[in-house]
């Protein structure tokens, strides 16, 4: 039974699609769910043991199936080991207690370097990435990873950008006042800016001028 707070005047609120309370008696018809969505790539939480077993029992290593689902994007939780930073990418091994798998994170933007600089051996991370088979072994091409302490230490951002910490904090304060980012929650010396992961790109013209830090929001789950 639908709540009576949705009367006919509010029907326009649903005009863009979604559930129509007045059609409560109709079941969802099959065209409501586009068949394209069913075949969309899924994100699979896996253990490394699961990946290893599937790899060994799979004839077609580039199209593995686990539990009836094509394995493309995966999410893993584990400890970072043997981190090796190179110019274009960072390689490490993820150990989740069931096994170890090699991971690779390409450094395409400044924010990638900042993110990876905050990661060190022994840290627990959750990562999202794509499984790739190459020369008989699997690696994870990492899209994103985060630690339990979300966010990046502000000193690290300031150092990477080459600007003084107080100028960085002033810029962040300005962005908060402009409504571009949400209120910061201080966690010791690292900041988690609301539910927006700060993607920092910058141009610093002069020390006197406010450093312009743009924010491109991405959604953390």
């Amino acid at each position, binding site marked *: 039974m639908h709540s009576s707070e949705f009367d006919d005047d509010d029907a326009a609120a649903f005009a863009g699609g979604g559930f129509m309370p007045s059609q409560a008696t109709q079941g969802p018809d099959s065209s409501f769910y586009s068949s394209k969505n069913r075949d969309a790539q899924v994100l699979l939480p896996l*253990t*490394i*043991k*699961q*990946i*290893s*077993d599937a*790899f060994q029992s799979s004839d077609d290593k580039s199209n593995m199936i686990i539990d009836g689902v094509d394995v493309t994007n995966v999410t893993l939780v584990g*400890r970072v080991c043997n981190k090796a930073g190179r110019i274009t990418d960072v390689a490490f091994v993820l150990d989740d*207690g*069931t*096994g*170890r*798998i*090699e991971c690779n994170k390409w450094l395409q933007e400044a924010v990638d370097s900042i993110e990876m600089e905050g990661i060190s051996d*022994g840290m*627990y991370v959750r990562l999202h990435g794509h499984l790739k088979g190459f020369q008989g*072994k*699997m690696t994870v091409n990492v899209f994103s990873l985060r630690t339990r302490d979300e966010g990046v230490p502000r000193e690290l951002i300031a150092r990477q950008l080459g600007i003084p910490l107080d100028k960085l904090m002033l810029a962040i304060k300005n962005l908060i006042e402009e409504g571009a980012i949400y209120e910061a929650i201080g966690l010791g010396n690292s900041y988690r800016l609301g539910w927006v992961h700060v993607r920092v790109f910058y141009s610093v013209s002069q020390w006197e001028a406010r450093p312009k830090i743009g924010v491109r929001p991405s959604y953390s789950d």
Partner: protein
Amino acid sequence: MDTSNPAVFVNAELLRLYVGRRVRAVMQVIRSDAGAVIGKSTDEKQIVVKGLPPPGPLTNFVEVIGIADSDKSIHAEIWTNFGDSIDTFSYNKLCQLANGEFKPLFL
């Protein structure tokens, strides 16, 4: 990929099944004695953890990874602070499921 050296999720009850093997356990730190930390497992029993803790204070809950050297003790190689509170019920359930119904996903 290398699955040759897993660390089994254990609580106190499961620890005895894996003596001599590599295990991981989350416990609440009760006190530190000479050379050992006494902890309470997620199934409310006492575990002794030997080995050298890392420098710095231990939080209330700690995960240790190491070799089970008896049915009541672990020789820890790796210690990780897990903070002041965790959901011990869920972790305990995880230990049971990872060694029972879903063991093939882990070992």
